[in-house]
């Protein structure tokens, strides 16, 4: 009995360590990718010096710089809430990784209600944004926080609809079952439904991450950085930079799992089966991240009312029709 | 490339004379622009006519400012308000000089006719001390609210030329030395 207890304990430690590493490393790599991808899309080089080779250590240096900076809390701020908000933003993002299967046997906790958990946890960090905005005693922060709350409500629904489609097709909420249920053409199958659900999810994900073109809550030319206006140093990087990148890596992983067949090879060839699933999973995640990064330098930002209209008058009706269509597909095909 | 409705400066001068005759003095041409002098009490009427008259149609407001002519030598005069309007249709420039009383400078506001004058009059007010009694919001535009004096008057010497005690001096010696 003794060694089993020890093994459980060890496993727990390993699991915790893994997710505590995956998020920061993912965020660092994501940040570097953002610098570089954007730079090359805009025909410039991006950071070239830190670390030597193509500035690989840029985000690391940035992170260290931010950690060493003074942590300023405004006099008028609600100190407790203000200090706690970055954690409330960061923790849910880390917790997303708990259920994402990196490989067939490499999942930290295969919950029966994995998808449900994912959707619930994934939107929790908005509470942190509201806390940050409200406690900062800054009007820009307040406007930003309210915008992000409104945006969450509007764009959570398309994501839920898209995920519901996946769940209906797979007949399970466990993420491993969902991956196992997907086969070769992945997102393109069933015809029409899969692709629309994938697009719906991608749009919703970009909005949830508050990235261009749906970055009204942090629109830097209007409301400085929204809820994070008053943050500095470590709290700023955790609540804004890390959270955004962590979110992006998480959503990349979710999209890869739900729509792109997770750890399965992209083409059902026998020879590709020998390549470990980790490779496929991260490859697909990177593809999604690249997609998210690509969107940013391409579009201007939509206005708050247009953003809401787009969600309520377009995405959500599309999602509802999609669910009907999926129901018909599951029943009759 | 002239516009179809464009007229020569001489024609413009004639038209100004015809339409505004009794209310203005000494209309003349100066580098293609019609120069005229107008008393403050006639100003609003003159400006409204300039804007609304079909012959002139000076709908475009260029600027309003002041000139302190007290040091200009012979024929200089005193303080005046300077207004420039332009007619895009007829290509007519009109410069209106409004001499005001230097002791109690006052000039009617034309912001009801040209909205652009709102800021220009505020600027002229703080820079020259000219009062525009019917201006809706005659506060300082550039200068701090507690600024003393009217910097654009000739009597106002530039502080760089006058040694002025530094207001932030704490040391008595420093204050005595002019705070430099």
């Amino acid at each position, binding site marked *: 009995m003794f060694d089993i207890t020890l093994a459980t304990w060890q496993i727990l430690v390993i699991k915790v360590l893994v997710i505590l590493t995956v998020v920061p490393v993912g965020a660092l790599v994501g940040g570097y990718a953002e610098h570089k991808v954007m730079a090359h899309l805009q025909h410039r080089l991006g950071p070239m010096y830190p670390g030597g080779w193509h500035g690989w250590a840029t985000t690391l240096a940035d992170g260290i710089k931010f950690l060493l900076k003074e942590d300023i809390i405004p006099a008028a701020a609600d100190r407790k809430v203000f200090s706690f908000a970055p954690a409330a933003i960061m923790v849910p993002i880390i917790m997303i990784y708990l259920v994402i299967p990196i490989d067939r046997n490499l999942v930290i906790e295969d919950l029966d209600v994995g998808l449900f958990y994912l959707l619930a946890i994934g939107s929790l960090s908005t509470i942190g944004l509201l806390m940050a905005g409200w406690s900062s005693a800054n009007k820009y922060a307040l406007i930003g926080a309210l915008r992000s709350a409104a945006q969450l409500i509007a764009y959570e629904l398309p994501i839920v609809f898209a995920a519901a489609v996946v769940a209906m097709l797979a007949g399970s909420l466990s993420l491993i079952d969902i991956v196992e249920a997907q086969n070769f053409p992945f997102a393109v199958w069933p015809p029409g439904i899969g692709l629309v659900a994938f697009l719906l999810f991608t749009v919703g994900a970009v909005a949830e991450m508050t990235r261009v073109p749906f970055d*009204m809550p942090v629109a830097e030319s209007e409301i*400085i950085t929204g809820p994070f206006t008053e943050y500095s140093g470590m709290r700023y990087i955790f609540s804004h930079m890390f959270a955004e990148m962590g979110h992006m890596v998480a959503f990349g992983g979710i999209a890869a799992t739900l729509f792109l067949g997770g750890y399965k090879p992209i083409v059902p060839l026998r020879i590709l089966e020998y390549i470990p699933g980790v490779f496929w999973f991260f490859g697909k995640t990177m593809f999604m991240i690249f997609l998210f990064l690509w969107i940013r330098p*391409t579009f201007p930002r939509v206005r708050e*009312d247009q953003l809401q209209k787009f969600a309520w008058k377009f995405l959500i009706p599309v999602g509802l029709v999609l669910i009907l269509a999926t129901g018909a597909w599951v029943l009759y095909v | *490339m002239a516009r179809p409705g464009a007229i020569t400066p001489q024609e413009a001068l004639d038209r100004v004379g015809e339409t505004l005759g009794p209310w203005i003095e000494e209309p003349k041409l100066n580098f293609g622009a019609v120069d005229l002098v107008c008393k403050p009490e006639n100003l609003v009427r003159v400006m409204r006519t300039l804007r609304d008259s079909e012959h002139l149609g000076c*709908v475009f407001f260029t600027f309003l*400012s002041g000139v302190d002519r007290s040091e200009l030598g012979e024929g200089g005069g005193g303080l005046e308000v300077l207004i420039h309007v332009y007619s895009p249709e007829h290509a007519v420039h009109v*410069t209106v000089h409004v001499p005001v009383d230097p002791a109690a400078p006052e000039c009617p506001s034309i912001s009801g006719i040209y909205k652009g004058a709102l800021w220009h009059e505020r600027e002229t007010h703080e820079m020259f001390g000219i009062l525009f009694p019917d201006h809706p919001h005659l506060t300082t535009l550039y200068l701090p609210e507690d600024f003393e004096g009217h910097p654009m008057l000739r009597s106002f010497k530039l502080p760089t*030329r006058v040694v002025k005690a530094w207001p932030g001096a704490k040391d008595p010696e420093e204050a005595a030395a002019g705070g430099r």
Partner: protein
Amino acid sequence: MAMTTGPKPASRGAGAEGRLQTQEMILNVGPQHPATHGVFRLLATIDGEILINAEPVIGYMHRGYEKLVEQRDYRQITNLVSRMDWLSGINNELPLALAVEQLMEIEVPPRAQYLRVILCEMNRILNHLMFFASFGAELGAITPTFYAFREREDIQRVMEATTGGRMHFGFFRPGGLKEDVPRGFVDEALKGVRQVIERLPDYENLLVGNEIFKQRTIDVGVLDREAAYSYGVTGPIARGSGIDMDVRKDEPYLVYDQFEFDVCSAPNGDCFDRFWVLVREVGESARIVEQAIEGLPPGPIMGKVPRVVQAPAGEVYVRTENPLGELGMYLVSDGDRRPYRLKIRTPSYSNVSALSHVLANTYVSDMIAILGSFFFVLGDIDR
């Protein structure tokens, strides 16, 4: 800065109609704010996302040029006025030179006139590309910034080689130019503007063809024709409101009457039209530069100017088409080396005074689009 004014207790909307009781909030946009290009403040009263009214507050950068110039002689003033609108330095120097030349009746040799046109138009391209970049950035599109700066750099280098400055050139003198252009100027300048002409369609497509961009700008911040006249709005902003006023066409100065170019104007007066006009003008300026370089005559670059520049007594109003609108200088001279009074009518000042008229009852996000589309430079407002 946002907390300097407390929330105003005034409430809006009657509860009797079943509407939610909302409080108006005063939001201080600026003096330090990413969208205000400097120290410009907007006192905005907002109700949620709706801007009820906004009052521009200026003067944070007032340097008192109109007073300063009364203490300096004309050569020194050239360098002062160059710093008003720092994005179009060489254009600022022009009306001063013209005013002094008119009073002194100096004839400027054709080569100097052509070079003035070339430099002014290249500066206009620089300025317009800068606003192309910043307007995109304000709407959240970051790529135009880098596109525009790449183009700017080529022209900027030509300007630098010619004048020695990148922003403040100090190159025009009453009577001509400071010196002749360096060797290779013609080729480099031609290369720069041809590149702009070639790449301009890309830039247009990037923003003007974008659906989100159209939604953000069409019918937003409409400035009607009458208001534009009444406020004295000029430049791309006026031309975006259907006013085809352009001093270069209406009263050609220098040798502008010898070139073929169009005055771009658009009828609707919204942000989109203003921006469209701005982008179009880049192409027109490039055309003028091409023609001017082709017709560039040899000869001296300085007219017959006495050793001491003393404008005879008199008054003259000179206006030129600055990139942002009509730049006018009313020079009163008493025959001294220094101007007796120099009234500088800057385009941004008049243009921005129309802001509160346009900003009432818009969205907070539109406020940024409108601010961005009003293409102003703080130094030009405050002088």
